[in-house]
């Protein structure tokens, strides 16, 4: 048997979140994720995935980065580097966005929060945090705005699933029901007076992300209190394995896969988060030009395997006759849907719904079909 999953071959020591000892104590299998020593699973990927879909799961996402922009020209700075329109944000509101290169391709995908007219928080991916911070500083030099990296000051936990609210409710007197999707408030959680509570997540379920001080004692205490509060709902700690299968079922892109410095906003299907009509921003010109020229030549589509086999990251996508025409960016079994699914780039001609294609799996052409996205949408809340 040979294993093709990443093993730790650190030449420099791996970075650790404050929860590292807690993960090891819970028996987590650890993996090198972008230079971080992170839990990939605890009790089992499928069990963790199903916990989030049917009950509640807890993720340590402290490796993600937090970059704050403050000053009288903070909005101008954000508007230059971020493709979405931050001027539309109300206080406490968050929006999905991206930092773009002048070519209209991705430096990173981000969440932008507005705390006040002169105060914005950008939450960025772990593996790109250093790159993003340099990028933002470099391009916003002329603005009267401070760009500060707070990544080391915050631990971030994601409580996700239909019972997430009930769990967090036991740890705070903040009115969680009143926090709408993609809104945030500051409030008291686990006795800490200064916690950011955000109704956001990367799983396709309802849930909250909370930001607490990153000292090991506080972070570990909060982590344990969440697990304790969730015990009656059979909460599970969940690792990066389940995080990936959950976001894939929900058709959410992952930087380095669907979105890279070589992929543009329009072919990634993220145009609705890119406000080409707003004031000048990095990447705008290139994307307007691309639009004028008739749009992208290829499209990110969702595939469902129709024959037995799993189309995985990097596998070629072919016509049914076997001609290679595209590539899988993310592919995996979907534990909740009980299908094998993939996101892939194919030329426009092959991107129509129900198009029959194939994925080349270790030399064999295995049939797949273009399907609607998202693969999974959570059931509407009963009010």
């Amino acid at each position, binding site marked *: 048997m040979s294993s093709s999953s990443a093993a730790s071959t650190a030449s420099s020591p791996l970075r650790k979140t404050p929860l590292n000892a807690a993960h090891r104590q819970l028996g987590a299998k650890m993996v090198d994720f972008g230079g971080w020593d992170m839990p990939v699973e605890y009790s089992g990927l499928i069990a963790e995935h199903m916990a989030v879909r049917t009950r509640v799961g807890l993720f340590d996402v402290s490796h993600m980065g937090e970059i704050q922009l403050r000053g009288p020209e903070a909005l101008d700075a954000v508007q230059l580097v971020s493709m979405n329109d931050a001027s539309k944000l109300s206080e406490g509101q968050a929006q999905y966005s991206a930092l773009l290169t002048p070519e209209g391709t991705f430096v990173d995908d981000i969440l932008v929060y507005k705390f006040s007219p002169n105060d914005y928080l950008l939450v960025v991916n772990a593996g790109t945090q250093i790159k993003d911070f340099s990028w933002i500083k470099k391009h916003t030099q002329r603005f009267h705005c401070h760009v500060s990296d707070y990544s080391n000051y915050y631990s971030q936990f994601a409580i996700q699933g239909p019972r997430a609210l009930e769990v967090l409710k036991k740890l705070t007197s903040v009115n969680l029901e009143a926090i709408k999707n993609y809104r945030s408030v500051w409030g008291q959680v686990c006795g800490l007076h200064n916690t950011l509570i955000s109704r956001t997540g990367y799983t396709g379920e309802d849930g909250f992300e909370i930001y607490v001080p990153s000292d090991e004692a506080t972070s570990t205490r909060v982590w344990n209190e969440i697990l304790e509060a969730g015990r009656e709902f059979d909460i599970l700690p969940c690792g990066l394995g389940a995080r990936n299968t959950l976001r894939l079922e929900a058709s959410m892109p992952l930087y380095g896969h669907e979105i890279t410095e070589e992929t543009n906003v329009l072919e990634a299907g993220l145009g609705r988060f890119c406000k080409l009509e707003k004031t000048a921003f990095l990447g705008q010109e290139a994307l307007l030009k691309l639009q004028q020229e008739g749009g992208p030549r290829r499209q990110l589509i969702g595939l469902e395997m129709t024959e*037995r086999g799993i189309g995985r990251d990097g596998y070629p996508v072919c016509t049914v006759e076997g001609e290679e025409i595209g590539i899988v960016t993310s592919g995996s*079994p979907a534990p909740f849907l009980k299908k094998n699914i993939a996101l892939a780039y194919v030329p426009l001609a092959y991107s129509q719904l129900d198009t029959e294609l194939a994925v080349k799996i270790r030399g064999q052409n295995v049939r797949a079909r273009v399907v609607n996205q998202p693969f999974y949408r959570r059931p509407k809340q009963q009010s």
Partner: protein
Amino acid sequence: MAYPTSYRYTREHEWIQIDGIVGSIGITNYAQDSLGDIVFVDAPKVGDSVEAGKVFGSVESVKAVSDLYSPVSGMVTAVNEELVTAPEKINKAAHDAWIIKVQMTKPAEADSLLSAEDYEKFISEETGD
């Protein structure tokens, strides 16, 4: 976890249980633990040949694919059909979940495989425990 002393093992984490000239082949508990939840087994058909040290199929978990290397040469006489619908049986009891049975053409090949003791030593060196 005890590794059955009547089995022989490979450095690629397969086990073989030999009964006369027929060997039952599976993957070890160490292997299933590393892979995680197994979702798919790609096995050869009855009548196919296998060769010692060569790939004869694969086992897939949610997150990874692993090639299977045959411990011995011979002909496939049986394939475990249960693993088509319930591949998780490998996670639950790796040393009971045989994948194929092989009629060995060179039974002496089994002599160069690892004993349970050697295999346990090998994996403790691999993990650094």
